[in-house]
């Protein structure tokens, strides 16, 4: 039997497979390149980048939770100049799709980043309007339609690369945000970023995280992410990249059935650095076992109950 086609085309960019490393979990790829070749991945969404370098929040920056974790890294990154000079050359050689995840305090920060990245070998830009761990920018842009539309509109004007907008689950209605950014020219949406959570150390009585609260990721949030992906995929015509708790290949299949054309995997990599490779192989096997030729045979093919609440 011929192998099924697990490649996917998102806004004109071809990914060899639908499994992408989620921003912030994979750095700039160097570390995990010691364990496997990065071209095994469909793509890498790089650590959130800002114009100027950022130091991020003080430690502790992580806490474990049932089937999940909290983080408040706070967009630590060396800034675009350092990135272009010291990291991009390495990444270019990896033969995988490179997605720049960008963040800013102001719309002009975002535009500046998009403009400069447009002149580079980056394949796509992911507009992060959903980081819960920084006071300015981040999620502030992602929770109401007007701001989300506004930043997308401006960035679109400066961005010559395919533009993905990464959505926040904190929005009252994530599908409305998705529609708003689609209307402003986003080429795709990715969702979800983390949910805001907290843990308290009952010995010290202090929050475990330096920032008091942080972003909840991992398997715990999968059902919420899946629901949002499904809702969103039915409302927009642009591709939807699903993420949030994808840990096993079965989770990825659920996301694809719900309408995601690709998945991002973050937290699962911490427990198992090979999680993404296993997910990719599991997707391929599922297609083979069900005699499907390509991902098109499953993307969005969930059969909902017409009388269901959603």
């Amino acid at each position, binding site marked *: 039997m011929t192998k099924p086609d697990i490649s996917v085309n998102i806004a004109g960019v071809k990914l060899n497979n639908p499994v992408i490393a989620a921003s*912030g*979990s*994979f*750095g700039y790829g*160097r*570390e*995990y390149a*010691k*364990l496997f070749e990065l071209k095994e991945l469909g793509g890498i969404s790089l*650590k959130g980048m800002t114009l100027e370098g950022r*130091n*991020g*929040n*003080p*430690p*502790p*920056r*992580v*806490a*474990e*939770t049932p*089937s*999940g*974790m909290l*983080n408040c*890294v706070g967009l*630590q990154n060396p800034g675009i100049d350092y990135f272009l000079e010291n990291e991009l050359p390495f990444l270019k050689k990896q033969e995988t799709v490179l997605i720049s995840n960008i963040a800013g305090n102001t719309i002009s920060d975002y535009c500046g980043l998009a403009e400069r990245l447009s002149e580079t070998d980056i394949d796509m830009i992911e507009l992060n309007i959903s980081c819960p761990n920084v006071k300015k920018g981040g999620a502030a842009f992602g929770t109401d339609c007007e701001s989300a539309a506004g930043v997308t509109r401006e960035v679109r004007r400066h961005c010559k690369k395919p533009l993905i907008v990464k959505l926040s689950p904190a929005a009252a209605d994530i599908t409305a945000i998705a529609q708003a950014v689609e209307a402003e020219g986003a080429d795709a949406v990715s969702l979800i970023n983390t949910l805001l959570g907290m843990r308290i150390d009952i010995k010290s009585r202090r929050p475990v995280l330096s920032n008091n609260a942080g972003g909840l990721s*991992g*398997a715990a949030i999968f059902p919420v992410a899946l629901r949002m992906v499904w809702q969103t995929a039915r409302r927009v015509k642009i591709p939807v990249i699903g993420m949030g708790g994808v840990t096993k290949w079965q989770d990825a299949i659920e996301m694809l059935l719900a309408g995601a054309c690709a998945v991002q995997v973050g*937290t699962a*990599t*911490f*427990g*198992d*650095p*090979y999680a993404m490779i296993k997910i990719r192989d599991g997707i391929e096997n599922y297609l083979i076992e069900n005699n499907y030729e390509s991902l098109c045979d499953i993307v969005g093919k969930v059969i909902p109950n017409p009388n269901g609440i959603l």
Partner: protein
Amino acid sequence: MTVEDCVIISKKNIAKGVFDIWVKCPQIVAEAKAGQFIDVKCDNFTLRRPISICDIDNKKGQIRLVFEIRGEGTDWLAAKNVGDCIDLLGPLGNGFFLGKTDKPAVFVGGGIGVPPLLAASKPFGANATAILGFRSACAVILKEDYEHNGASVTICTDDGTAGRHGLVTVPLEERLDAQECAVVFACGPKQMLKAVARICDKRGVMCFVSMEERMACGVGACLSCACKVKYEGEEKYFHVCKNGPVFNAKTIVW
């Protein structure tokens, strides 16, 4: 760096809640150095648990881990028995930069910070002085192991039930003031490390500290395990798993 399924070869309960295990992991051993750590996958937990490499047996392809039950993950690990397999990611981080092992060196360990220094003390043989602090007599671990490696060992306990009564800092100052010392290696509670660093700094003695921080990836990708250091005149967050766990004490912003 590799992910390896490792069989537990031996297991001892060496103090209340403290376990001493040897695991077979030839691939990890092939790269492992004193001062590095491995990251243990604990079933049903999202995050791995970092444990320092306490000793390395190159011939047998085994490493030794000494750990204390501190919570759910270490509790899970402590329930594993000889013959069980555990999934380790490692070796991680940078080992100790040992320098010249024919010069005298002092190893200052506090509590569960004692094991991570053991392998580093080995090559120093009789040039090593180990000053090891514990809560109480019943918590003393690895004394014979340090002595076996040739080190002269001073034990301190908080309650005076074994060795000297009080903190490790007093014997450390005495030792540094009495005899020459090329370098100090320290691992233990942050307050202890800070005090040790200050003592060394005052005397112009090189000091390396092994730091702890909460981790997610363990490899340098997620930027969780931040540790503030002075770098090119600025204060920056470096990462314990990648840039450490061993840092030159001078660079740390305490």
